[in-house]
Structures are given as C-alpha cells and as structure tokens.
C-alpha cells in the first residue's frame, strides 16, 4: 500500500527553481531517505509534503487523499503529517510529557500513549523533565516520540541527526529505525549523509537540481546507479571509459568482465574496493601511489596509471603503508557495471 505519492512537484522562489517535476513514492511502513547535496531541493520537497509551502505545479497524495495539487492546498494541521525538525524544536515552555502529548487528544493521553512512545525511544520516566534539562540526543528522541505519538500516516524527518556528534548519531540512528519499525510508522528522512541514508533506509531517493534522479534500495543505488552523477555522489567511484565486446570490455585496467552484455564505447563504474593491489613484480596493471589516506577501518589510495589515468583504490585487509611513489600492480575484482548512457537532450 502506498502512503505518499509525489508527482511532478515543482516549486520556485523567484528565479530559483527549488523543485523541477520531482517524483517520489513511499510504501506504507517503510523508511525512505531523500539524499542529495545542499541546495538540491530536498528540504523544499519535505516542506511541500508537510504543507508549509504551496506547490507551483504537480500533485501530492497522502494515502488516497490528495493534499496538494492544482487549486488544492490542504492546511498542515489537516494533513496529519508529523515533522521532526533538525534541532528537535521542542516547546521550551512544556515538559517532556507535554511535548509528547501535544498532538494527542485527551483520551489518548489517558491511555498511556505518552509513556508508550517514550519507552520506544528509550526515555521512559523522563516525562517531567523540561527540554533544557535534556542532552541534544535526548531532545531528538523526544522530538521523534512527539511525532510518533498521534500515529500519523507519515512522519517527515528533516536531517534529525545533524546536530549530534558521530557516536551519538550512530546510536540514535539505530534506535530511531527500531522505534519506527516497532510502531509500524511510515517515514521520509531528508539527509545529505550517505552513510545515514544507506544504513537505515529501506529506499533511497537521490535528488539533484530539484529532481529525483533515482529511487532504489540502498544496495541497488550503490551498485547500479542511474547515471554518472549518481555513481560519483553515492560513494567513491572510478569511471572508466571502455570498449565493450559482449560480456567483456577492453579498458586501461585490462580486460574486465561486465555485469551485463554491451557492445561499443561505454563508461564503466568500478568501485574503489573492487581494485586489488599487488606487488610490483606480480601480474596486473602497473600504477604508482600518489597519496595514501588512512581512515582507520580502511585506507584510500590515489593511484596513477602509466598513461596518466587516475584511479582510487580502497584497501581493508592490507595494513601495509604505501608511501607516495610506491610502484604496485592493480587487478579488478568482480564485474564492472556499465553506466546507462545519458538520455539525448531534446
């Protein structure tokens, strides 16, 4: 069952086109991440879904009910779409229970819904605290509980982890996903953090320049990006020109197997972790290390082939340090993905 449908949504602020015919479909009970760089229009998309902004064109449906479209704009409080803001935005003059119960009617408050959702987010017993007595992470948990409490058909999360430190962010991410699942809530998470989007979302929509470029599961998005921009934006990518001959292609990195059969000139996506480094006296394509970037759990190497082509390799299981200027040989693991050709411009 579909909970949210956005079709050809467009919105401009003067000469700036924030949304250009954006499409998005969210299934009930799932978490969809809208991922994109700053200024791509993702927050505008969220605000039009919430009803804070009017659409210039297109249509938005929540469940079967149209809430925005030509000549139609349902007020935010009639849409039943709860929003979790970037900074939590708790009401400072109300305690935690008051905040969580704000969207509830009296009956629901008496039924213990407040304590129920506070337990879901791990804050049982915090009802009497005031917002200024909570840490940043706790405030975000209260904000999520407040959005969950009235059981809205859709919850919109506007970069809710941005203001938190890295360790707290990971912990809260996991707890948020668990709470949403436990309450069978449908949610849209707006973020510019790839790790966040890929790790907790059931579906990721990549936005660029006011358009949704691709909507797919996290693994499909990473392994089968829709275009070169998507391939480069989600994760690190080596985009290599090649000539395809059926199931293989001739490249600067040697003859590589393809994920699907093609013929002629193509562009291949080879992720850095597909490249394997070998000693200089073994087989493979010769390359020289230009930079070695150690990240703890892995390391990234900037390499230069003999013809000047630059590639990036990620090494996980080789704790060896590669100083600049080291000569190595490269081999490619697995099949290379053939990027779809861009649609001819009209």
């Amino acid at each position, binding site marked *: 069952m579909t909970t949210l449908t956005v079709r050809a949504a467009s919105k401009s602020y003067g000469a700036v086109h924030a949304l250009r015919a954006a499409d998005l479909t969210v299934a009930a009970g799932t978490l969809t991440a809208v991922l994109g760089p700053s200024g791509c229009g993702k927050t505008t998309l969220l605000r039009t879904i*919430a009803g*804070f902004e009017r659409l210039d064109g297109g249509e938005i449906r929540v469940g079967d009910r149209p809430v925005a479209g030509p000549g139609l704009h349902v007020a935010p*409080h009639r849409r039943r*779409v709860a*929003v979790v803001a970037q*900074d939590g*935005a708790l009401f400072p003059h109300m305690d935690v229970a008051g905040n969580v119960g*704000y969207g509830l009617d009296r009956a629901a408050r008496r039924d213990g819904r407040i304590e129920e959702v506070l337990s879901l987010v791990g804050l049982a017993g915090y009802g009497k605290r005031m917002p200024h007595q909570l840490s940043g992470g706790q405030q975000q948990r209260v904000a999520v509980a407040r959005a969950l409490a*009235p059981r809205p058909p859709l919850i919109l999360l506007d970069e809710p982890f941005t203001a938190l430190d890295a360790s707290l962010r990971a912990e809260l991410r996991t707890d948020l996903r668990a709470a949403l699942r436990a309450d069978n809530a449908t949610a849209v998470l707006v973020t510019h953090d790839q790790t966040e989007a890929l790790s907790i979302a059931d579906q990721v929509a990549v936005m660029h320049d006011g358009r949704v470029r691709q909507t797919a599961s996290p693994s499909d998005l990473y392994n089968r990006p829709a275009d070169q921009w998507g391939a480069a934006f989600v994760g690190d990518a080596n985009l290599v020109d090649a000539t395809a001959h059926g199931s293989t292609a001739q490249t600067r990195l040697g003859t590589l197997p393809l994920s699907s059969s093609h013929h002629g000139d193509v562009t291949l996506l080879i992720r850095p972790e597909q490249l394997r480094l070998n000693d200089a006296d073994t087989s493979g394509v010769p390359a020289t290390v230009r930079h070695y970037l150690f990240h703890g759990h892995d390391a990234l190497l900037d390499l230069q082939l003999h013809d000047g082509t630059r590639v990036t390799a990620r090494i996980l299981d080789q704790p060896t340090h590669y100083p600049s200027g080291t000569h190595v040989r490269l081999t490619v693991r697995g099949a290379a993905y053939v990027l779809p050709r861009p649609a001819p411009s009209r």
Partner: protein
Amino acid sequence: MHGVSGGTAEKILDHPIVVRVAGDRHAGFYRPRPGSGAAGGSTDGVAVEAYRWGALTAGAAVRTASMVLLLPFMLGNLAVWLRPTPTDRFGLLGALCRLLAGTLTAAFVLSVIGVTLDLVGWQCVPYDRCREGRPYLSWLDELPMGPRLALLSLIPLLALRLIWGIGVRSARAFEAFGPPAPRPETSELPESLNTRGFWDDERTTAWLRQIHVGVGAGTLDASLLAGIADPEAPVDRLLVVAAIGLLGFCAVLLCLPVPATRAGVRRLLRPLRAATVAVTVLALGYAALRAGDPAVVGQLPGYEGTTSGLITGQGVLLVLLALVTILVFFGIHVAYPLYQTTWLLALAYAALFLPLAVGAVAAAAAQSPPGLEEIARSLGRGPVTVLRTVTVPLNLPGIGAGAALVFLTCMKELPATLLLRPTDTDTLATELWTHTSVAAYAAGAPYAGLLVLLSAGPALILARRTLTAKDRP
C-alpha cells in the same frame, strides 16, 4: 480704503482737504472735509475713508529689505498666533515658538558676523590679493587678528542695538494710542485680539527683548572667541564656556513663562543683563588685547558648524511644532468626539509607544526557536490553538516587558498628556510639572516619589526575568 503708503492722506484719498476723524499722528482715520467735495473716484452713498500709518519709511527697496529682514520675525509671530492656545494651557507650544524666535535672532546676528568677522576679517584682510582692489580695508591688516575681529564685532553689536531700538520704539508707539488699560498683574493672556489692553504688553516685550539681546550678544561672543581662542588655554576655555552659558541661560528663560509681576521680570532680567554685558565686554576686551595671529585657514573656526547646527535646530523646532499642531488639529477636526477625552490620550499613547511595545515583543519572538509553530501545526493543531498554546506563551516575557516599558513611559509622558488630556484629569507627570514649573518642588515631591515607586515594580520584574533567563542554558 486701507493701505500702507509713503504718501499723505490727501494723496491716498485724492482730495485736497482731509481731516483726521480718529487716531493720532502715528496712525489715524482720515476723511474728506465735509463740504469740500467728494473724493476722487468715489460714488454717491459711499463714505470714503483712509487709514494711514504715519512716519513710515518709504521706498520700494527699503520696504523690500525690511520685509526680508522682518519676515522671520513675522513667521515667528504667526506661529505664536496660530498655535492652539486653548489646548496649550501649560505654554508648551509657546515655549517652542519663543525658542524658534530666539534662533531667528541668533541667525540674524550670525548673518552679520558672516559678513564682518568671517568674510572681511578672516577670509579677506589677511590675503594680499583680496585687499588689492579694496584699499579701504588695508588699515585692518595692520591690526593683529584679535583686535581686528574685536573691532569688526562692533558692527554686529550695532545691528543688535538697531533691532533693540526698533523694539523699544514699537513699544513706546503702542503707548501713544492712549493711556494704558488697567492690566491685571497676571501671566494669563486675554483670549481675543480686540480685548482692551491686549496690545499693551510692555512687560512681555521688555522680557523678550532683553532675552533676545542676550541671545544675539552670546552668539557674537561665542563666534568671536571661536576665532581667536586657544583650546589649550584655561582662560580661553573659561570665556567660551561663559559665552555658551549665556546662550543656555537665555534658552532657559525663553522656555519659562513671562513672570507674573514686574518685580519678577526685573529679578530675572537683572542678572541676564549683567551677564550679557560682562561676557561681551570680557570677550571683546580679551580679543582686543590678544597679540599674535592664529593660523588662518578656510572659514572663521566654528562658524560653519554653528550655522549648520542652528539651521538643524530650527528644523527640529519647526517639525516639533508641526507635529504637535497636527495632533491637536486631528483632535479638533477629525476626532472631535474624542477630543479632550481619555480615548484620544490613549490613541496618542498608542501612536507614540506602539513601536516600543512592538520592539520588545519582536525581540522576544526573535529569541524563541524558529519553526515551532510549524511543528505544532504538523501535529494536527489549528492556527488558533497554536497561537494559544505555543506563540503566546513563548512570547509572554516579551509582551510583559513591552507592557511594562509602555506603562513606565506613559506614566512619565508629558507633552502629549498636557495637550490632549481631559480638563479634569491629571496624571502624576502633569502634577509634577505643574508644581515644578512654579518652583514648588516640595509640593511636587510626593508625585515624583510615587513615580519612582511605581516604576520600581515593573523594573524589578523585568530585572528578575532577565536574571532567570540568564540561568538557563
């Protein structure tokens, strides 16, 4: 037939034999002598009569010059007469008009100083090229700057003496119409222009004349000292302070109502006269004895700034007069049912202090986290509920602070209250003003104390709120 002319009554009436039927030689009504024929151009059944001011200076050029010279004073008089007297019970508009007139005297003296001290003494005489075509100025070059400016200062003083003489002469001419009407020794003016004795106000003219002489002399002294004084020398600084003090004393006297008795006038004018003479003699004497030439650059030091400041001050006074008059005009002609009621006063307070309240509330609103109302609406609450449960509670400190500020300001507000309050209504501020304006400080003390006490409450609440807010993270 009325008019001003340098001609005789015979010429005005175009008849060889005329008689004065009323008035005296200064001003009177004239008719053709009965039995000597009709006046030229007259028709039957019409009595031809001329009203003639005597001993007027004739000549278009002189008349025009007089008009230009007297125009500012005419405007000052007009402002006084057009002011809404019935509502100006405390003389606020009168004080503004008198201050404006004072600035006109200062402008008159400054204009003469501009020609004599600045153009001639400062900008021309020290330069050979300027003196080349003007041999009559060469003797001034032999004098050092101090004595030269002191000598040239006699011309503005003479101009001031001329104006003073005209003022004295006018007052005497009024008296020539007949014996002065018995006039009560009170500061209250009769309301109507044709009230007997209305124009016989020697006490007022003498009072204002002496103050204006003080203003003119103070302006001259300050300008002269600005040209020669050394800012580092204590004597120079003392003299400049004395000249500015003389001007300040004159400004204070202009703001006060005319003393009710001749003795009161004399009591205040005596020290003013002494101060005027003393400061002027000292300034001119000090300049005359000063040797050595200061560095001559540009205009007379301070002249440009004084002129600009004076014009700015006149502009501010005129704007104030216009604003107050407009407010009263609105009260009389547009909102007459509200006029002199508490409602018009409340309206005036609202117009005056709304920005104060809006500023306080806006500051509080700016401090509250953004987007809270949107979040509240996304949780299913309508605009009215959001206003009641989120917006108003969050802005309550600002609303309280705005209310306290407006309350405090309204309590001590004076000009609008004096002009617009109902006749039988007094506020603490007006009571305080009533008593202090007649130097009854002891009588005004309870109202001042009450004002302080009432102000302390809101101030304490505001201070506590501020401290509480600081405790929060």
